[in-house]
């Protein structure tokens, strides 16, 4: 399995899910991620799993809810408009503490938008999207290879914390082909899912997702979840540092944008610019300490996104006003070019 093959992003996610032990997939077609469904409709039955095309995104996420409550590894995928429909179910999954993997190969919005790549679902993924005090673990891959390793990790983290994990990609990552190697997922052992409902079978019955009408009791539930999110923030931050370790300007970008920023760092180097890049791999938990440290060292930060300024808010919260944070973004499916970003960098540095 260690040989290098050329694979499309969406298919790589689907195969990686199967290798991570995903037994069921529920989805609804939407561009630019439908290849995930198509691949799994063929592949899951081969390994004794279940593929079911749901009547809606709403139904799909609730089928995920039922399968996860049964103790299975389960996934759904969609793009912006469909992920919006799933938000109700996502909120319920978090409070019932049901693990699952949700893939968003996001596209231009708002509304129907278009099918070009975009990062304008950052707020939706990281700040809630659904109702109530909750967090998703959000992973932001930047290459097809990373779609594989982060899909593996997503299933592990979901089970480890009994929490939904969202993989936030975009149409470009989903549609592009790159050479990849399928490595075996290797993670520490996880506790058994003794909370799963499987019929009483002679033991005390189990209930998933209780009604909590009393304010004090619900506050306790929310505080318990909050402690879990703090634990995730402490343990699971992932980022990639690239370029100069002592930069004059710190660049911050995730996913597809970070690929372009690497070109900016290399091109800047040729012009004598010392540029550093932090690429958050986990968007929640956010690598705020590392960004804060390098930002203070550099004295200036430029955040680049394929939206009109979403992650930049978390960068500003990380540096707490100590360092000026600039922003450059394209939206509606437009992809920023390295040239334009570099000229912005030169303006800021001079």
């Amino acid at each position, binding site marked *: 399995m260690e040989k290098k093959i050329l694979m499309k992003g969406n298919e790589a996610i689907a195969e990686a899910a199967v290798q991570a032990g995903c037994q069921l997939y529920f989805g609804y077609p939407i561009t630019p991620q439908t290849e995930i469904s198509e691949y799994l409709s063929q592949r899951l039955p081969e390994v004794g799993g279940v593929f079911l095309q749901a009547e809606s995104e709403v139904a799909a996420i609730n089928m995920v809810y039922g399968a996860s*409550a049964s103790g299975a590894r389960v996934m759904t995928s969609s793009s912006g408009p469909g992920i919006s429909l799933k938000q109700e179910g996502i909120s319920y999954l978090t409070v019932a503490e049901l693990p699952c993997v949700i893939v968003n190969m996001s596209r231009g919005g708002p509304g129907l938008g278009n099918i070009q790549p975009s990062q304008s679902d950052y707020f939706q993924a990281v700040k809630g999207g659904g109702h109530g005090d909750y967090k998703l673990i959000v992973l932001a891959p930047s290459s097809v290879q990373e779609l594989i390793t982060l899909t593996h990790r997503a299933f592990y983290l979901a089970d480890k914390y009994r929490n939904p994990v969202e993989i936030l990609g975009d149409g470009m990552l989903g549609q592009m082909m790159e050479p990849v190697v399928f490595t075996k997922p290797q993670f520490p052992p996880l506790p058994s899912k003794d909370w799963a409902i499987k019929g009483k*079978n002679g033991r005390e019955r189990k209930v*998933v997702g209780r009604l909590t009408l009393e304010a004090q009791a619900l506050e306790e539930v929310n505080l318990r979840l909050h402690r879990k999110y703090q634990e995730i923030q402490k343990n699971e931050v992932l980022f990639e540092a690239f370029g100069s370790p002592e930069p004059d300007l710190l660049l911050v970008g995730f996913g597809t944008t970070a690929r372009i920023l690497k070109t900016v760092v290399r091109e800047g180097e040729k012009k004598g610019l010392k540029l550093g890049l932090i690429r958050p791999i986990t968007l929640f938990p956010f690598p705020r300490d590392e960004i804060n440290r390098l930002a203070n060292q550099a004295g200036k930060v430029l955040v680049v996104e394929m939206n009109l300024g979403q992650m930049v808010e978390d960068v500003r919260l990380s540096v707490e006003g100590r360092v000026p944070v600039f922003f450059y973004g394209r939206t509606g499916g437009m992809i920023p070019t390295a040239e334009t970003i570099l000229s912005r960098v030169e303006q800021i540095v001079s």
Partner: protein
Amino acid sequence: MAVVFERPKTLIKKPFTYCPGCHHGLAQRIIAEVIDELGIENKTIGVGPVGCSVYIYQFLDTDFVMGAHGRAPAIATGIKRTQPDKIVFSYQGDGDIAAIGTAEILHAANRGELISSFFINNAVFGMTGGQMAPTTILKQKTTTSPKGREPKSHGFPLQLCEVLSACQGSAYLSRVALTNPKLINQAKRSIKKALLTQIEGRGFSLVEILSPCPTNWGMSPQEAVDWLEKEMIPYYPLGEIAVKEGILHA
């Protein structure tokens, strides 16, 4: 001495918390009796809804999953597809199953999903205080149809069993009421047939249970039973609406 009547084992030993004259408690007791008789308490998983029906998990001693409003058939689908050897049922009110959850129940039926749904139709949104439901009958006054339901503004009462009877995957559909002992016995037979339909792998099954809501109808329990028999049953006729023999997915 022979025991001729006792509390079903699957009914948790605590008093029902439903309003006086409500038939949720009766319906849940009958479901518990059938689960006992079929001996399936160890492999049954219930899926709760949102609304007064949600409290079922506090009274039936089986594994339960509680989810979002109207989505129980999708959740039940996820459970059944993961655990085909289990008996999975949803228990839903009319707002849950016939308004916000219409898509989920229709497609579960159409797929012939091997689940059973028990549908409590009391012609109002109960938990929120008696608003108009899709099943509110014509001229019925509710807090959101204060002059009575009229078709021009509010459309017509939804006959869910008849709608689902158009789905090829529906193997057993029945409408029952619990207003007298004879009807209770018929209802119990229907609930058993629904679960047997699932156990035998014959397709989707649903039992609609007409139930009074004296609190929100503004009636005494006896008046509510009388109103149900006089006004609801003519529009929602009792009986088996679809019975298909054979194995759907064979």
